[in-house]
């Protein structure tokens, strides 16, 4: 019940705002902020009460919703979703604060923001496919309105593009969901869309798995977004208001990577394994392409948007390393990206509010007149590059470590992305902050005020916290990741007779082997050896 309460609290707040007179802007803002802060604090309670020794779902609630179809209101959190959940409430709070100076339709804006928050939280807690889909689509509408109503000059184009891209992907996922629903009904005799049950019992032949995998892949890859489905992202980011960009980068994109971890890997382990090279190359192309395109951008926000494409490539690479390092790295990088890129968008918003332009060429020499701003920007920028001691380093390092165990070439290609990131970020930083203060319009820019500092500083603290002491974060998802890796490990669908190679995991995998045995693909001894090697690696935090 507690989880339900936290999830729907923002929606209740939004409903309350509906009845407030729209003239009392200050009261509306304060109410929205109070709701967001309360929601964040309550969600922290979830984290403190979370038992991180188990991979099992916690704070579960399972009540019938549509009984005729066997669909339940089933919610819960595990290590994978908990941090994303807390990050969502956290960023919602930051975003409400960052939207203090919205100049039109404040009430409607806050309603959209709070509704969006409930939609996003719902995605992370859903343990029923139907319910997941409902939230997944539902959050599109408020985001669409935030971009379309409060966005920049090309907001209508950007918002419709955002909506249609995401919708097309998710509709194909809907077909796959239906297919799974009837398949489960046929094979086990239970009409259910329960994610945990399906994870346990779905055992489709490889050919079918591949089709289903692709349907889910399309939905999530568009959301992440992976190259070549990324084209909506720069448009949406550039046109969205500052807070919209922060939410978009911080949470919405994470729903895609979350989808891979919650559905693609555990539902279709074998297909996932088969598709690793494809995903890896797409991710690498994304990393390098995103970085190169970011380098030539003239608009600050577009630069950050393309850097997102590059950073999310790392996350995808980590997930599809299919080993503990990779997935832990991906999860922590998920959080990092939300924090660093969120901070960068907020900071870009600060100068945009003052100058109403984001062109890099308009700036230069800001360090002299805006010292506080420059320091904040520097921290966020360096974290985005992945400087040791900051959060980005932990994530990228783990991802590269994970992917290196799979394929050295991929790791090498991905590493070049880190170097390119340094190029485009530092070059941009130099052009904006250093050089001569030539543009007279910049001469009397004010430094950040208290409210702006309040939005950015918490993010900067997190940057150092994760960079220096990531243990509380890593511990949260350790058990879940270990469980997930054991579930998707290629050994599970290895034919039984080759079993003796791998005494270490025998007991653990016996059951799954029987289950997957009949559909298994024979793999070569060399492949086998490398897989065994990977599986015996202990999880990082247990060292």
């Amino acid at each position: 019940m507690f989880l339900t309460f936290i999830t729907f609290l923002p929606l209740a707040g939004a409903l309350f705002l509906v009845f407030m007179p729209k003239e009392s802007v200050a009261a509306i803002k304060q109410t929205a902020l109070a709701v967001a802060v309360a929601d964040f604090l309550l969600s922290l309670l979830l984290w403190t009460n979370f038992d991180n020794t188990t991979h099992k779902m916690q704070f579960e609630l399972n009540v019938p919703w549509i009984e005729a179809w066997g669909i339940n209101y089933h919610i819960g959190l595990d290590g994978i979703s908990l941090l994303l959940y807390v990050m969502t409430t956290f960023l919602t709070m930051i975003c409400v604060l960052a939207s203090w100076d919205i100049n039109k339709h404040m009430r409607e804006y806050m309603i959209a923001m709070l509704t969006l928050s409930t939609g996003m939280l719902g995605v992370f807690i859903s343990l029923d496919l139907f319910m997941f889909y409902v939230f997944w689509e539902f959050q599109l509408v408020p985001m669409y309105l935030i971009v379309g109503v409060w966005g920049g000059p090309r907001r209508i184009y950007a918002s419709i593009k955002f909506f249609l891209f995401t919708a097309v992907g998710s509709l194909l996922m809907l077909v796959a969901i239906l297919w799974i629903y009837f398949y489960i009904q046929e094979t086990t005799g239970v009409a259910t869309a329960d994610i945990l049950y399906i994870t346990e019992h779905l055992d489709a032949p490889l050919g079918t798995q591949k089709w289903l995998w692709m349907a889910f892949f399309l939905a999530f890859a568009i959301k992440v977004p992976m190259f070549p489905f990324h084209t909506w992202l720069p448009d949406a980011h550039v046109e969205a208001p500052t807070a919209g960009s922060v939410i978009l980068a911080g949470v919405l994109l994470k729903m895609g990577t979350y989808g891979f971890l919650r559905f693609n890997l555990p539902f279709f382990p074998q297909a996932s394994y088969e598709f690793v090279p494809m995903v890896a190359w797409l991710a690498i192309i994304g990393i390098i392409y995103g970085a190169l395109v970011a380098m030539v951008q003239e608009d600050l926000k577009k630069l950050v948007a393309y850097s997102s494409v590059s950073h999310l490539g790392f996350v995808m690479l980590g997930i599809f390393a299919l080993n503990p390092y990779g997935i832990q790295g991906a999860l922590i990088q998920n959080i990092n990206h939300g924090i660093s890129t969120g901070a960068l968008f907020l900071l870009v918003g600060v100068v945009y509010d003052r100058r109403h332009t984001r062109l890099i060429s308009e700036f230069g020499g800001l360090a002299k007149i805006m010292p506080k701003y420059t320091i904040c920007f520097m921290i966020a920028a360096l974290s985005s590059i992945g400087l040791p001691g900051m959060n980005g380093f932990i994530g990228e390092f783990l991802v590269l470590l994970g992917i290196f165990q799979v394929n050295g070439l991929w790791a090498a290609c991905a590493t070049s992305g880190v170097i390119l990131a340094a190029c485009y970020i530092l070059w941009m930083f130099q052009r904006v902050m250093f050089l001569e203060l030539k543009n007279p319009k910049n001469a009397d820019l004010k430094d950040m005020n208290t409210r702006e500092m309040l939005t950015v500083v918490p993010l900067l603290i997190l940057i150092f916290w994760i960079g220096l002491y990531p243990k509380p974060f890593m511990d949260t998802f350790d058990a879940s990741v270990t469980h997930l890796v054991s579930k998707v490990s290629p050994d599970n669908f290895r034919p039984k007779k080759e079993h003796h190679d791998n005494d270490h995991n025998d007991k653990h995998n016996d059951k799954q082997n029987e289950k997957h045995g009949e559909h298994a693909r024979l793999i070569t001894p060399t492949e086998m050896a490398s897989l065994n090697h990977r599986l015996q690696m202990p999880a990082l935090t247990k060292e």
Partner: protein
Amino acid sequence: MEPILAPESIDLIALAPVIVLSVFAMMVLIVDLFGGRNKTLLVFISLVGLLMTAISAFAKNPIPAYSFNDSYIVDHLSLFFICIFTISSALAILLSVEYNEREGIRAGEYYALILFCTVGMILLASSTDMIMIFLGIEIVSICLYVLAGIRRGNLASNEAALKYFLLGAFATGFLLYGMTLVYGSTGSTNLFEIADFVKNPEAQSNPLLLMGLVLLIIGFGFKVASVPFHMWAPDVYQGAPTPVTAFMAVGPKAAAFAAFFRVFAEAFPEMAPSWEVLLSSIAVLSMFFGNLGAIMQTNIKRMLAFSSISHAGYILMAVIAKNSLGASSLLFYMLAYAFTTFGIFGIVILLGRKGEENLEIENYSGLAYKHPIIALSMTVFLLSLAGLPPFAGFIAKFYIFSAAVQEGLITLVIIAVLNSAISFYYYLKVVVFMYMKEPEAEFRISLTPLTLFVVFVGVIATVSLGIFPGSIIALASH
């Protein structure tokens, strides 16, 4: 076949809803003769009549019950449909009152026609005999021809009526010819007897029967406005008075689908391989042309006409699925579609002005900041039509798609979902105008209570059917 009806096969209790409603409709006609200019009493009688009809429908127990030599049936499907019909006719009448006053439509027979049309719809949904189906279709169509042209002084309304009448008569010809051929080759007009007859594989390949099936499809295809028999729909929807448009989009369409479903899923399921392809292509074409056509429209009524063509495509999937899930999804879809459609047309009426003006989508610019609640309701309806959660339209689409997936019609479902994506574009276009553009002119909206009430009912039903569909689904899936 019995040559003469045995008296005991006539069960008047089973026929109660038809009788009750006919009596009330005639009462409306008579009262109108003496009632003078005040039509309030007529509205009241009509609404009471519809209520009594809905109640009397449940008089027959146990179900399924047959009457008139198995040509009339009271079963779950027909009961649920009678509820949909009475609800939608009641909403149509409520929408009409203030509209008719504004447009100066003083004809008392207006309400009687809606009631008679409902009688035809009930017959249509309850018949298990070709003759009865034909009777139902004719009653419905003739009432609609008159209703479409009831704004006598208006050119568009006249054009709509004439076009509808000519094409409709033509289509009825096809339908009748199809029925004749089916009768000729199977020796019966009764759906159950036909079903028995076509179990024989030899009978299935009879070219006359196949020809009959094709003609039936053409006839029904016209009545539900599916491509390529849809050409009348946009003009008629635009020209007819708005409450009649809403009524046509829901009630008669649902009735035609009920008969469509009965004929194909109950009489000819054995011959599915021969009609499945044809119906599937009609469904795909309807979705495609409906959605693409809607994108081009600037007039909201025309846009909704094309959107209703595409919805006919989705609903056809339930007929093609022909399983029990298909039947229950058809029921749920029509119910959800009824509330959403009446809601949306209610708003169209609210924003319209005398002489059917102010119906361009552009006229909705900036509505959200002048009348936020109305704009929000409109958004709810549009998103529900687009099939987005958590609204009724999503559950309805999900229901139909699942019926199709259960039958293994994956390709059809994929085409349908991609079409849904196309439809997002034009539904969102209205949202764009309402929320993202500045108002062009002053809004002169008279918030008339009855129309507002219909909109309110629509919103409540659309949202609650979307969030808590459980009990209705349980009812529909008996």
